[in-house]
């Protein structure tokens, strides 16, 4: 016979006012298997907890039920109290007679009856509780950061400075991300490269950071503290260990007119190239799709069609035969910082989107996007920092900026606000005025969203000091008329249509997650929203965690973010990871599934439904080594305890500790008439 103690809490008057706590305690005292039942004013207080501990010792209790508030409130408190009296904490459960009873009912008699029911139900459950041991998992004090933009760089440096090792994976040939493309940054107008480049070099030289540029995450397995990551190092066709970055190869290349990704297709690059002069690492890469050697080889040529770069290289670093290679890294935590891309009208339409053809992007050469404007304004850009039209190289005297192209538009684009556009458009108008003193910037906007320190002042400055003309309204269409672009808009404040002549138009297109984010998220078992942005574990209280323990998120892959936000998230993720790494072992609630391998038929429905890949296959063999059957086995480190496997298992050969079939059956049974 069980010896269960029931402790009914009055919670001052919170429970006692509507529930007759003494009657609950009396009723439970008569319940089979209850050895002790009392009520008390405040069970969670020190004297209340002492009451429980004393009863455990004196009455030799083998289970405790506290009828009080929600387990979300005080389950930990009472389990700790039980542990203090040498009773396994998982033999203690709570009956929620406050949130689920006294606070939501007025009829004292019926509320008391319900409280008795609830307490009995939990008593019946506890009769089937088993002592469980907290799960301890070792921690590999090494982190993987995916993405080498400003968020990834910040996270990597913070973690490495905190004393842990970091593997930083970047898919492009160089780290730096979009921030390296920017000319100046709001709201201070300081030079982007000037503040970013030293951080990039710091990453490169840091003794605890292993930089893997031109690499991608291929596969991820394991769980918090114990991930195994397979990384594909894409073949550069240049041996990084012998290359000294002299640049002779890029000068020798015969292909010189390939649109540069870094310059947003406004300037050329060679087939063997370094994306930009400050690239880290400064090792060139051969773009095989455009290289004469590889193009000829792909067509079946047996003789080398070109080899100018190899001839120019004094160190023999060019290796046309280099293949992709794979590296396996063990890490304890992962930061996803893959950043964003701009919505490119016509080029990559998210599912079901057809909109914005009327803005002529991609057909009218002087209609460009925000990042292209950054490259025009950048001193290191294709025009050396002069604002010149792509079509004829003339200086535009009238630029029209359109905000919210694709953002805040559930009908044609994305429903969300891209957050940074209001600020960078204001910045663009200022940069333009500073470079073209007689130029007129006109901005079509829906609202100006400039929330942030110094942000509103910044947009005011654009208008008041740098003469930007802001028109509240949208543009219906634009088209080329000889030398100019006719912009047909509507001023909603004056209520009048507006036709402007522009020399150049800049579209503030929506921020979207990087392509391929879904595939990466699936590898990591983290969820993402309908746009592909990674979901945080809780929007307010766990903003840099994901729903997979040990995987964190930073920067614009979670939602549109500006640089300060991205950096703050990265540092937050780093501090979470350093906190995780400060422990030698992790403790986890033992609510995990167990397979009865004797009963398991190996149909692996459980494997298919497990959101975490926690179900593994194990071969059962006889003593001679003959295979008897293959059964499912749950890796307790990976299992998060949802129990979907158990409900799916046709024969109920898997049990979720803490919520076993026997426990739930007992609860349902206790609710009988």
């Amino acid at each position, binding site marked *: 016979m069980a010896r269960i103690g029931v402790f009914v809490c009055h919670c001052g008057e919170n429970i006692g006012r509507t529930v007759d706590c003494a009657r609950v305690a009396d009723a439970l005292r008569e319940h089979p298997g209850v050895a002790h039942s009392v009520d008390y004013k405040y069970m969670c207080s020190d004297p209340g907890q002492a009451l429980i501990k004393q009863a455990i010792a004196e009455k030799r209790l083998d289970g405790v039920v506290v009828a009080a508030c929600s387990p979300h409130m005080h389950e930990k408190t009472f389990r700790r109290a039980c542990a203090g009296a040498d009773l396994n904490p998982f033999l203690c459960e709570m009956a929620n007679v406050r949130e689920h009873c006294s606070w939501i009912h007025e009829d004292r008699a019926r509320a008391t009856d319900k409280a008795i029911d609830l307490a009995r139900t939990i008593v019946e459950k506890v009769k089937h509780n088993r002592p469980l041991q907290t799960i301890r998992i070792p921690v590999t004090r090494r982190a993987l950061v995916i993405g080498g933009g400003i968020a990834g760089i910040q996270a990597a440096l913070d973690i490495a400075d905190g004393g842990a090792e970091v593997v930083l994976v970047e898919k492009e040939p160089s780290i730096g991300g979009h921030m390296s493309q920017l000319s100046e940054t709001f709201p201070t107008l300081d030079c982007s490269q000037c503040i970013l480049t030293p951080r990039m070099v710091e990453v490169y030289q840091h003794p605890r950071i292993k930089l893997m540029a031109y690499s991608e995450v291929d596969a991820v397995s394991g769980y918090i503290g114990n991930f195994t990551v397979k990384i594909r190092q894409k073949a550069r066709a240049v041996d990084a260990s012998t290359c000294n970055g002299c640049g002779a190869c890029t000068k020798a290349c015969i292909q010189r007119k390939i649109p540069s990704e870094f310059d947003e297709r406004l300037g050329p690059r060679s087939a063997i190239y370094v994306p930009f002069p400050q690239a880290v690492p400064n090792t060139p890469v051969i773009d095989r799709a455009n290289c004469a050697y590889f193009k000829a080889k792909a067509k079946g040529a047996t003789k080398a069609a070109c080899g100018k770069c190899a001839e120019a290289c004094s160190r023999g670093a060019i290796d046309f035969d280099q293949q992709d290679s794979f590296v396996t890294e063990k890490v304890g935590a992962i930061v996803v910082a893959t950043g964003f891309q701009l919505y490119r009208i016509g080029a990559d339409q998210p599912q079901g989107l057809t909109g914005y053809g009327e803005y002529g992007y991609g057909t009218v050469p002087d209609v460009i996007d925000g990042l292209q404007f950054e490259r025009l304004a950048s001193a290191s850009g294709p025009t050396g920092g002069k604002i010149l039209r792509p079509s004829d190289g003339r200086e535009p005297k009238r630029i029209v900026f359109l905000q919210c192209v694709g953002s805040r538009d559930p009908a044609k684009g994305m429903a969300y606000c891209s957050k940074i556009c209001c600020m960078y458009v204001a910045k663009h108008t200022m940069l333009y005025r500073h470079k073209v003193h007689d130029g007129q910037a006109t901005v079509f906007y829906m609202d100006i969203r400039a929330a942030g320190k110094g942000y509103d002042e910044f947009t005011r400055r654009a208008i008041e000091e740098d003469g930007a003309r802001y028109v509240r309204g949208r543009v219906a269409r634009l088209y080329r008329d000889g030398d100019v672009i006719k912009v047909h808009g509507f001023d909603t404040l004056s209520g009048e249509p507006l036709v402007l002549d522009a020399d150049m138009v800049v579209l503030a297109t929506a921020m979207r997650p990087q392509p391929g984010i879904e595939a990466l998220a699936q590898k990591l078992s983290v969820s993402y929203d309908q746009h592909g942005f990674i979901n945080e574990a809780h929007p307010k209280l766990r903003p840099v965690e994901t729903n997979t323990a040990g995987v964190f998120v930073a920067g614009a892959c979670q939602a549109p973010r500006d640089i300060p936000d991205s950096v703050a998230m990265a540092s937050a993720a780093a501090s979470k990871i350093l906190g995780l790494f400060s422990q030698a072992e992790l403790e986890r609630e033992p609510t995990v599934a167990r397979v009865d391998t004797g009963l398991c038929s190996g149909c692996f*429905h459980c494997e298919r439904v497990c959101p975490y890949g926690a179900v593994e296959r194990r071969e059962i063999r006889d003593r001679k080594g003959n295979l008897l059957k293959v059964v499912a086995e749950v890796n307790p480190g990976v299992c998060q305890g949802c129990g979907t496997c158990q409900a799916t298992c046709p024969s109920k050969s898997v049990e979720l500790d803490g919520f076993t079939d026997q426990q739930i059956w007992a609860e349902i049974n206790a609710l009988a008439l």
Partner: protein
Amino acid sequence: MKELQELAARLLTDGSAGVVIGYEEGPRGVRPAFVTRPDDVGRLIFDPRCVHNLATYLSPRRTHLKGLGRPAVVVKGCDARAVAGLLRESQLAREDVLLIAVRCGGVMRHPERHVDLRAETVADRCTSCDVREPHLFDFVVGEAPAAPPVTDRREARIRELEAGSPADRWAFWQEELSRCVRCHACRQACPMCFCERCVADKTQPQWVESSAHPRGVLAFHLTRAMHQAGRCVDCGECERACPADIPLGLLNRKLAHVVAERFGHHPSDDPSVPAPIGSYAQQDGQEFIL
């Protein structure tokens, strides 16, 4: 017939199969045959009386058959779907079995009573089966048959039940289930009921009462039907095995309609088609959820 027998002889002679599982004439009609010697292949037959789903014998729980060596099993369209189900659910490895597909134009409802295949005598399931020749096989034998005679008996019965009130349906099923003696023949005959220990036999806790008490009977049939949803291959073995003539096919068929309409799932002899329960789509219908 000769083609089948010659193939069986060849497989047994060259050692690629240890046993050919097919059909033979028995003292009370057609019965499953287990031919291990090339000399005995003359026993093998195939005609519309061959209703049994021989995939049932491929369950790893049939350990007594293991000693006979690699089986070559005769499969109709419905049987091939069962083999695909066993492959899909890891009960069988493809290389552990040889499949002799027979071209099938339908089988009889009561092979012991009928002589020819007509709309009145055809098994209900054959009308809704469009597989004349299975896609999952190692060998195919037989002539290309005509499509089975058409009957609407089963679908008409489902429509009729659906048109009634819940109370009518309750009364109908209580009447039908009142004959259930919990012999579990439906389970034993089913190729997809292969659990080591059926949940209906679980005692701690006992979700399904084990006696033929109305409460346990209902729980058993609800559970059996649920476990078959999206997995049932519509071979009709449960209903054929039932000594009490409970129309289990109606339940299976109804749920087949549900998974087809809701999840676009149709029973398939392609093992790579996933079962609908155990997978999901974000846009699954949820009109029934508040």
